[in-house]
């Protein structure tokens, strides 16, 4: 048996979460599994190992997706944090109204919304891209979809951000965000069908509960997951689309010349900058990976971005190239827990990429501002100084 490589890197240090890629490269070279002493976490660093672990729910349990026990406790009973066979039932309830099958009627509306918003911003000529586009668009789409109104709509952003922050280790960011995540939890535990707009997907979840298709009391849980898992990540992805197209006008030009590249471009944005840095699992047994053993009970961190930049899997992985179309990137996870909202994320992102590529020749941007986060890696502010229209 080989000795487990170890490292004194703190996975949640400000400088690491802001720019994890140099650290990922170092850890990936140490081995497919490295024990981080400061975090007491076994990190998975290489593409094949990560994809294998995501598929292997029997060895890698989702009962510890967060890096602190309070958050894992709070998530008990959700599909996110459960294993088969319970997971299979919860997942079916979650996706009944969220799968591409359920959403296929929405494509036209989402495309029209994205196009109208981008047209307005191009007309303005300069804007702050995170508030005006990356946040505004998915917040509106998700609020309309689930049927949120009033104060809930106003709280979606901070609740969604807090829900991701509290998945971190017991640090200051987690502590500061627990009360905010608690507001979301409270609201979801008492929300009723009549709080949501008639005809919305949110109402549909309550209808499913009423007719016994999902267990009593789970509708609130599901709405919690829509908000907790779907808001902050989608905002990150759309902000990243704008930032990467601004940085790489040649890549935007490729999509402009060939609009069918929009899905490929989104795959590459997600591969290059995954919205989520690290996601947890717990080893249910001693797991042997290339001769290194992850001991039973160990907390595992899956480094999605490390796998996405693994040169063993992707040629020239540090280059942003929309034509590579990395359909098998790891940013949505994979397998039984693969992102349940990825169909909606694709609809939104393809619509934004389509609108940008039709209406924008290139963007002149100022420096992007980032704020360290425990889970999501996103841009906080991105000033678009000038739009050169198509």
């Amino acid at each position, binding site marked *: 048996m080989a000795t487990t490589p170890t490292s004194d890197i703190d996975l949640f240090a400000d400088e690491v979460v802001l720019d994890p890629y140099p650290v990922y490269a170092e850890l990936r070279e140490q081995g497919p599994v490295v024990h981080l002493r400061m975090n007491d976490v076994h990190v998975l660093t290489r593409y094949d190992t990560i994809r294998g672990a995501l598929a292997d729910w029997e060895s890698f349990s989702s009962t510890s997706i967060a890096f602190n026990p309070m958050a894992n406790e709070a998530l008990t009973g959700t599909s996110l944090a459960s294993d088969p066979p319970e997971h299979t039932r919860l997942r079916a309830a979650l996706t009944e109204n969220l799968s591409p099958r359920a959403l296929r009627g929405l494509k036209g509306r989402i495309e029209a919304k994205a196009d109208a918003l981008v047209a307005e911003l191009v007309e303005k000529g300069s804007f702050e891209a995170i508030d005006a586009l990356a946040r505004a668009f998915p917040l509106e789409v998700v609020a309309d979809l689930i049927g949120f109104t009033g104060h809930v709509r106003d709280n979606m952003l901070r609740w969604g951000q807090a829900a991701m922050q509290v998945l971190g280790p017991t640090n200051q960011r987690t502590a500061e965000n627990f009360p905010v995540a608690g507001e979301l939890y409270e609201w979801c535990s008492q929300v009723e069908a009549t709080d949501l707009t008639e005809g919305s997907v949110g109402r549909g979840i309550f209808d499913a509960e009423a007719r016994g298709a999902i267990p009593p009391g789970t509708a609130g849980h599901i709405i919690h997951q829509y908000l907790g898992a779907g808001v902050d990540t989608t905002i990150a992805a759309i902000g990243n689309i704008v930032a990467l197209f601004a940085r790489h006008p040649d890549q935007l030009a490729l999509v402009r010349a060939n609009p069918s590249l929009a899905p490929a471009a989104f795959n590459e944005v997600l591969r290059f900058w995954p919205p989520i840095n690290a996601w947890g699992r717990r080893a249910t047994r001693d797991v042997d990976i290339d001769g290194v053993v992850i001991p039973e009970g160990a907390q595992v961190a899956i480094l999605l971005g490390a796998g996405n930049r693994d040169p063993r899997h992707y040629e020239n992985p540090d280059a942003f190239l929309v034509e590579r179309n990395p359909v098998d990137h790891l940013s949505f996870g994979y397998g039984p827990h693969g992102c*349940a909202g990825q169909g909606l994320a694709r609809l939104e992102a393809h619509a934004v990429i389509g609108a940008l590529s039709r209406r924008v020749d290139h963007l002149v941007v100022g420096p992007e501002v980032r704020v360290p986060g425990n889970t999501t890696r996103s841009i906080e502010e991105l000033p678009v100084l000038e739009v050169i229209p198509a």
Partner: protein
Amino acid sequence: MRIVLDRPRCEGHGLCEEAAPQLMHLDDDGELVLDREEVEGADAALANAAARVCPVAALRVI
């Protein structure tokens, strides 16, 4: 070789159809239809590509 679909797992993401449109398609209800299940040679390679891109691991080639 044979393509096996785990129907309850399939959510209709449709990435398999993009990888292997000769072998499978989503119908008007968004349900996956396997147009061919027995595959050989180049088709087996396509089937493997389709199974590989399924985001929820609902397809296998055995």
